[in-house]
């Protein structure tokens, strides 16, 4: 029990720290730190999505950039149509662009959910190495499609000239946008916790541990895993929409397999299957990028070394190091 409460304490500390950060950044007159913290919150949310499939469900998806990018493109495309006052399509029914975040989020969630459903439907027929390679391959397919499809910028990407709007919040103010992202991150963590403790979560964890037993009690593992994969893709897609708004830019690089690797790295750095693992991982990742990226352009060399060290020698990630082994590992 002692180790569990240490993890809870760490979670509370992380939450308070993230809440206080923008005020501290403003007080010491370093507004750029708010942007960094926004990146942390968004990548953390993408990681929370992946963590549901990867940590709870044991589905090693190496293609989550697909959902991240789909969410990003949903935001970019809707915003660009709203800016140009051109409808996305006129027949059979009219669809117009929008710059309202709430609508954009909904579209991003739906689009990435459909993407995850289709990819999951095919790739969940397999498991193990096949699953890794197939999720990677389908993500790459969408990546190449985005590069060769000229309507929305192709290889050059798509700019969002004005950050999209949220009722009652000035999204152009870094603090306002940060708190939107942070609130969604917390909602994502809350959803993960709720799912994990529900009957569905119990079924998902047994699908990871022993599929035969799960089938024997009358639950189809395939449906459980597909549902988890879709919810996971939706969360990552929502993060993608926020990421597009943060950078005011969408490009195929959001869909590239380096992005999949990046999301996976931060889940691993934080601790697989831990509720706050992705957030802890994102904090470390961004700090690492900020410090080493400022010193040398070859910072990814050192990232590689650190990752190698974590995989070979510190498998529980940072939360594992601080809070000890998880109860159910």
């Amino acid at each position, binding site marked *: 029990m002692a180790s569990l409460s240490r993890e809870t304490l760490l979670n509370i500390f992380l939450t308070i720290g993230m809440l206080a950060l923008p005020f501290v950044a403003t007080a010491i007159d370093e507004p750029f730190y708010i942007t960094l913290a926004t990146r942390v919150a968004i990548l953390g949310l993408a990681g929370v999505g992946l963590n549901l499939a990867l940590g709870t469900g044991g589905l090693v998806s190496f293609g989550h950039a697909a959902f991240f990018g789909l969410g990003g493109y949903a935001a970019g495309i809707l915003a660009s149509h709203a800016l140009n006052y051109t409808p996305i399509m006129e027949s059979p029914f009219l669809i117009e662009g929008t710059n309202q975040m709430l609508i954009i989020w909904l579209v991003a969630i739906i689009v990435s959910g459909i993407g995850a459903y289709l990819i999951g439907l*095919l790739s969940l027929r397999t498991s193990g190495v*096949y699953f890794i*390679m197939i999720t990677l*391959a389908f993500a790459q*397919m969408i990546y190449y499609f985005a590069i060769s499809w000229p309507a929305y910028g192709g290889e050059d990407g798509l700019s969002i000239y004005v950050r999209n709007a949220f009722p009652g919040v000035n999204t152009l103010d870094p603090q306002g946008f940060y708190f939107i992202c942070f609130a969604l991150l917390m909602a994502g963590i809350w959803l993960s916790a709720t799912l994990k403790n529900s009957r569905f979560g119990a079924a998902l964890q047994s699908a990871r541990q022993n599929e035969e037993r799960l089938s024997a009690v009358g639950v189809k593992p395939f449906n459980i895993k597909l549902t988890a994969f879709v919810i996971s893709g939706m969360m990552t897609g929502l993060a993608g929409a926020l990421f597009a708004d943060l950078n005011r830019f969408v490009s195929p690089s959001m869909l590239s397999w380096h992005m999949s*690797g990046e999301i996976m790295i931060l889940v691993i750095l934080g601790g697989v299957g831990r509720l706050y693992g992705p957030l802890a991982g994102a904090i470390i990742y961004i700090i690492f990028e900020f410090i080493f990226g400022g010193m040398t352009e070859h910072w990814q060399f050192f990232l590689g070394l650190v*990752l190698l060290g974590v995989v070979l020698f510190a498998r529980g990630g940072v939360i594992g190091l601080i809070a000890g082994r998880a109860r159910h590992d």
Partner: protein
Amino acid sequence: MTAALFFEQLLNGLQFGVTLFLMAAGLTLVFGVMGLINLAHGSLYMVGAFACAAVAAATGSFWLGLVASIVAAAFAGALIEMTVIRRLYNRDHLDQVLATFALILIFSEGCRFIFGSFPLFLDVPAILAGPITLPGGLPYPIYRLSIIVVGGLVALGLYLLIAKTRLGIRIRAGEADREMIAALGVDIRTLYTIVFALGAGLAGFAGALVGALQSVQVGMGEPVLILAFVVIVIGGIGSIKGALIASILVGIVDTLGRVSLPSLFGLFMDPSAANSIGSSLSSMLIYVLMAVVLIFKPEGLVSQNG
């Protein structure tokens, strides 16, 4: 599309397929024998290409460069096998993916550090430059034709190695039951290092061959790696025969798709729309092929168990 153009593109597809096979063979061998998924295989391809370009530039000989590509990639492969990969055989696939992804970051940035971000260029040797006239009057680049021939020879050599030699017997035995052959006194650690270095050497060789057609740059191995994954998913993981069939299939489908889809759509659309739709769809074609294979034969075309 005329018959001559079709035939030329068919040869291009074959050449592409052959280079994919050199990559996929090593990947699938390593998976079949050691049960390891190696993302860093694309880095070994890159190492081979850079070694070839550097040696060719220093000595002026493409052939020395070619030898260097195999030696350098096999050496790099043996090195990472002994330092990192060896620790991963008993780990789950997630750990293997992450550790080999970390190796990619290290290799790519290391290469960028040594050679810089600008692409290097590798010239085709004079004796292989220029076209040759095929029977039927079709001119075709000698270099591409030689890649097809060399790839065919390598495939044959691999078959002989695995089917006829003592090392091949051990490799097959290692695939079937690793505890048993270790108990029979075969040094399994050395065997694994040899298999890994063999796959790495093939990847490096492919990198050097393709390097002379395209440019040699950091990250060049990654698109090929993912295509090689598609190949071994289609062919059946662990099967060299499946890898050969699937890589030629993927090479030809991809090449012909890129040429024919835009003109196919041009039949009923205006040319610019046909061009953009055709080219975006043709870039997805082999993944669609993979999806179709998965639906009907989830274990791949050549199943290891069948």
